[in-house]
């Protein structure tokens, strides 16, 4: 599942373990790419947590609901690195 974890984070969470090698691959993929809104990634055995600046998204898109835009970016990133969300 993907959800807003507070006002500055989007978290992808799964029940199955994310192996160390998989985490390394995902982190390397995140580092290599440039992102529109995502600024940081924290990985654990079950989660990928993305940091973003909500106010920047709000002002860029003239909206007070930045979540969907950022979740779309997270989904697109997960698809590129072949993580099934």
């Amino acid at each position, binding site marked *: 599942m993907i959800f807003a974890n507070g006002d500055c984070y989007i978290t992808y969470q799964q029940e199955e373990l994310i192996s160390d090698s998989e985490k390394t691959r995902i982190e390397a993929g995140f580092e290599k790419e440039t992102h529109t809104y995502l600024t940081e990634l924290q990985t654990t055995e079950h989660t990928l*947590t993305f940091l973003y600046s909500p106010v920047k998204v709000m002002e860029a898109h003239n909206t007070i609901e930045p979540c969907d835009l950022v979740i779309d970016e997270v989904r697109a990133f997960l698809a590129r690195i072949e993580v099934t969300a």
Partner: protein
Amino acid sequence: MSLIVQDSGLLTILQTLDPQPSDKGNEYNGACDRLAHQLANQLVGNDTSAPTVEMTLQPSVIKFTEPTIIAFSGAGFKAKSGDRDIFLNRIYLFDRGDELEFIPQPKGNRIYLAVAGGLEAEGSNILKSGDEIIMCRNYTAHHDELFNMLKRRSQVSWGVDTYALVEVYLSDTYHIVRRPDIPDEIYEQLESAEYTVRNEKNRVALYVDGPEIALENVGIEHAGVKGGVHIADNQPVLALNDFNKVTTAPQVGTIPSYHLHKLSQKSTGSKIQFKAIDAADAHANLYAHHLWVKSLFKAIDYKLSKELVKEKM
């Protein structure tokens, strides 16, 4: 010479606004009270992200070695310099040899000291008694004007009034953004009671006591995020800036960034009440808070520029 830490208090640390890597091995995990950090910088004409001195619970005593413009913000601490009373959220000029001593008050936990022209650590950013803090002296034309004005009277006649900040700091109610995997009953339990701060592990977490929360630990490893509310030993634990990167304590939600200023000012014995909200509501509140901060900073700029113009006439 720069600023000398005469007495380092409980925890005095040079801190950046946002987390930053350090080639000296220092931990810059960001100011706990971002508003106070930015406000102190705004008052002295710095970039709001310039490093400040973050002092927790029992603040330090600072000695000045040259003319220095300062402001401090955050908890309702008072300060003294000789016979002179020094107040929160005001701009002061100190001279060589002056000492600034803070007097803790029952409310609040942290203050942030900003120095015009910026600061940097000589070695470790955790400051001990006898340490020096280097003044960067990156003075702008605005700083020069401030120096000229303050040479004549050593302080400005106004400051940001406590009442102006009441909206941010006064309430004991803390929003908690719901997670989709947590049952509604848990939020009902959290909302129905008042929690008392038992203690703070410095910059890591706030431990609170109240009615027990029975939440099954399903073994998910969570990322430690600022404001995360976890359940450990059936009690909420609230994550601060230096919280573990990873935790297996179940996470029930996250306190939004606009409530983290006042969270970091909570001291032992103070009260906390939770109110569960959705992310959409948190974002609406965040934007309102953002606009309020912008207007506050504009008001400071306006007051200062008016005063500087008056000085020139």
